[in-house]
């Protein structure tokens, strides 16, 4: 099965092709489109099965040799530059592949019901499959160039899917914004890849990570790492390239769940963990990762609290959670980052899909101020959301608790006290910002008149599976930091977990984490659900603070302003060039030709004498020429 790993990206790719070209976009009334959805889901499910098979084969091999590279064909050979299309099955990549295909298949299933009435459902599933294919290429690639292919591919699919309802101007501009913003990171990343080749002569992971210690100076390693990090920052929506993520919520909710919660945005984390050898060679880069993660986490937490759109609130929460993953990686706690990545995939997908239920039931209403008390009409969804939210908040024994607690504990054992304090604050805020939509939407007084209806069974089934994963996942995968199954599994790739000695004992730390989480949930309940705090008056009472929170500290406005000036100036300059220089040249040539052709007939007016004059002119000139040669 290990050699068949190429099937994993190939199956969804086939699905995309079929849906795009053979089944075609469906029109209302044609059932074909929905069948395209079943086909797409089945193919991703099949890919998941192959991945499981590969996992089993991998487990059969001894722990130290769990790397299997399948070379498909030679892709580029140009002199000393040689890149193959090769897929790598090792613990890290198979973990990612399982998450992508597993959660992906569940979201595909959900989307069949969610997108049922959309006329372009066939195209939707084609794009969704294409995305999964590219994401799998990204995580299974054995060299940086193939990884970059997948990287770009998911960026493309993100653009296609955010702007899926292209007739909405907000959607299409959000898609463009996403593409352009991540482009900045991608360009830096490409430079980093080039540098890798320049210094180490190869892009294959084994070669790069093997030669890195000897072949790279610290400065080179820092440069490469920072450039790769730039790409990761863009793709994972961390500061300062995060502005596209909240706007990306314009896409359909399954897209938000799959791409912007569970998988694509975690690609940055995967890149950092995969390249950890390079990052460790340069100590500075790792610190930068840490700082970026922590600052993004706190920034996004505060922003999330200020959002009234439920999807945007969840988007900022994603950014914050990924910030935690970067934070963990920055401390060298790669297994912790990966555990959070996997658990986050589960509960964030759950949260987003439940939000999809709410949108489905509330006729696409997203403003939480117009929700409230929905647990009466949508009890099942309330349960799902509660499970997801409490997991994120870090309430044991849900998955999120293990991941988050391990990270915060790890921080406490490192020498970075400030980091630990900030991480703890972040943990508190994260519990707060996720409990808020839970209470605003499902609890409290009803603020809407319409009758919300629960989602159908087809949409609830994947949610049930996800909820199960959230409940059980932490226990299964990450019971402890060193001994958890995932940590042990990933050890050959990322190294063992090294705890520093801590001042506080394990039990104290756990108790502290739980206490913070519970406190935050209670505070959230009191503010937003109990009715005792007039949270609706907050924007009027404190318009400035509310404004800062709601507009995410006006970073969007700042960027717009920064881009505007040179952009407009450049545009104006170009316009001048276009009109005066280019048009001037072209029109000038045309005018000259016109003038010349007006002049031309004057030679042939029919007067014999002017012809004679012309003869003489030529004769005189010729004689002159000959004469000058003699004299």
């Amino acid at each position, binding site marked *: 099965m290990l050699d068949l790993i190429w099937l994993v990206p190939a199956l969804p790719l086939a699905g995309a092709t079929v849906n795009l070209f053979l089944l075609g976009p469906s029109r209302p009334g044609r059932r074909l489109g929905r069948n395209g959805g079943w086909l797409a889901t089945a193919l991703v499910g099949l890919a998941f099965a192959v991945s499981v098979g590969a996992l089993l084969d991998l487990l059969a091999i001894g722990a130290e040799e769990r790397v299997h590279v399948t070379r498909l064909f030679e892709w580029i050979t140009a002199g000393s530059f040689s890149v193959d299309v090769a897929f790598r099955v090792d613990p890290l990549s198979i973990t990612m592949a399982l998450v992508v295909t597993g959660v992906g298949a569940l979201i595909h299933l959900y989307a069949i019901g969610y997108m049922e009435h959309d006329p372009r459902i066939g195209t939707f599933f084609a794009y969704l499959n294409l995305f999964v294919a590219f994401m799998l290429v990204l995580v299974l690639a054995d060299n940086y160039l193939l990884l970059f292919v997948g990287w770009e591919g998911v960026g493309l699919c993100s653009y296609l899917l955010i702007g899926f309802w292209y007739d909405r101007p907000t959607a299409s501009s959000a898609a463009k914004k996403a593409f352009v913003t991540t482009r900045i990171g991608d360009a830096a990343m490409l430079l980093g890849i080039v540098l890798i080749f320049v210094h180490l002569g190869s892009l294959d992971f084994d070669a790069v990570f093997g030669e890195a210690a000897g072949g790279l100076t610290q400065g080179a390693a820092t440069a490469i790492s920072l450039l790769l990090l730039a790409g990761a920052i863009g793709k994972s929506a961390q500061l300062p390239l995060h502005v596209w993520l909240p706007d990306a919520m314009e896409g359909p909710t399954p897209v938000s769940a799959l791409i912007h919660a569970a998988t694509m945005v975690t690609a940055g984390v995967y890149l950092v963990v995969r390249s950890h050898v390079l990052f460790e060679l340069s100590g500075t880069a790792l610190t930068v990762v840490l700082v970026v993660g922590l600052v993004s986490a706190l920034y996004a937490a505060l922003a999330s609290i200020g959002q009234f759109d439920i999807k945007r609130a969840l988007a900022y929460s994603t950014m914050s959670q990924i910030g935690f993953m970067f934070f963990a990686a920055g401390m060298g706690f790669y297994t912790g980052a990966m555990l959070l990545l996997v658990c986050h995939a589960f509960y964030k997908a759950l949260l987003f899909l439940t939000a999809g239920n709410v949108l489905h039931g509330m006729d696409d209403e997203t403003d939480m101020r117009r929700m409230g008390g929905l647990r009466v009409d949508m009890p099942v969804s309330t349960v799902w959301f509660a499970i997801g939210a409490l997991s994120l908040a870090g309430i044991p024994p849900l998955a999120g608790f293990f991941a988050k607690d391990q990270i915060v504990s790890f921080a406490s054992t490192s020498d970075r006290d400030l980091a630990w304090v900030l991480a703890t604050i972040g943990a508190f805020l994260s519990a707060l910002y996720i409990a808020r939509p839970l209470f605003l939407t499902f609890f409290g007084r009803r603020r809407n008149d319409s009758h919300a209806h629960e989602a159908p069974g087809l949409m609830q089934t994947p949610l049930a599976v996800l909820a199960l994963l959230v409940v059980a996942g932490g226990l299964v995968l990450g019971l402890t930091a060193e001994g958890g199954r995932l940590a042990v599994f990933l050890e050959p790739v990322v190294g063992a977990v090294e705890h520093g000695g801590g001042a506080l004992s394990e039990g104290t730390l756990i108790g502290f984490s739980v206490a913070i989480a519970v406190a935050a949930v209670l505070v959230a309940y009191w503010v937003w659900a109990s009715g005792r705090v007039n949270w609706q008056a907050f924007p009027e009472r404190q318009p400035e603070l509310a404004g800062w929170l709601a507009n995410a500290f006006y970073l969007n406005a700042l960027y717009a302003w920064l881009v505007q000036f040179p952009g407009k100036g450049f545009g104006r300059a170009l316009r001048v060039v276009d009109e005066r220089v280019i048009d001037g040249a072209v029109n000038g040539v045309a005018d000259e030709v016109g003038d010349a052709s007006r002049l031309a007939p004057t030679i042939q007016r029919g*007067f014999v*004498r002017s012809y004679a004059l012309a003869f003489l002119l030529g*004769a005189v000139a010729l*004689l002159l020429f000959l004469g000058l040669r003699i*004299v």
Partner: protein
Amino acid sequence: MSADQLVFWVFAPISIGSAIAMLLQRNAVHAALFLIVNFFTISVFYLVLGASFLFAVQIIVYAGAIMVLFLFVIMLLGVDREESLLERLRGQRVLGIALGVGIALELIVAIRAGVGFATHAPANFDEVANRGGNAAAISAVLFRRYFFPFEVTSILLIVAAIAVVVLASRQRPSLARATEERATDAEAA
């Protein structure tokens, strides 16, 4: 000053003067007459240069036949018709005169470069070239070395005569009208 120098310096100004005068006449008959004067001066030059046969032929053929023919045609076309002084083509006059002067200068420069202003003719022309008199000497060259061109020119003269007869004959009235119409159509197009 020797005889030929005197002759030269008298007739050269007359030659050039009559040529310029011919140019400046508005009346065609006057212009023709000045040209005849010019031909006479040229024939004198021929004489000075030792070409006595050509001296005679020039007068007989050019002044006597060709210019007479010219005068016939001028009479035919209307003696009193005078050419208008208005020059319709811009720059024609200026350029024409300028280029004419330019040609003259270039030729003079060529003469200086090729022959040199001081070259004299060899003195033994009469013994070497004109043996037996100019006419006899010319006939010796003409009917021996240039016999073939001589015959060709006679054919040329016959052809010219035929051509003139054809051109000048009046066409049948219907044909004339048809040709006239075609000409006016071509003009209008």
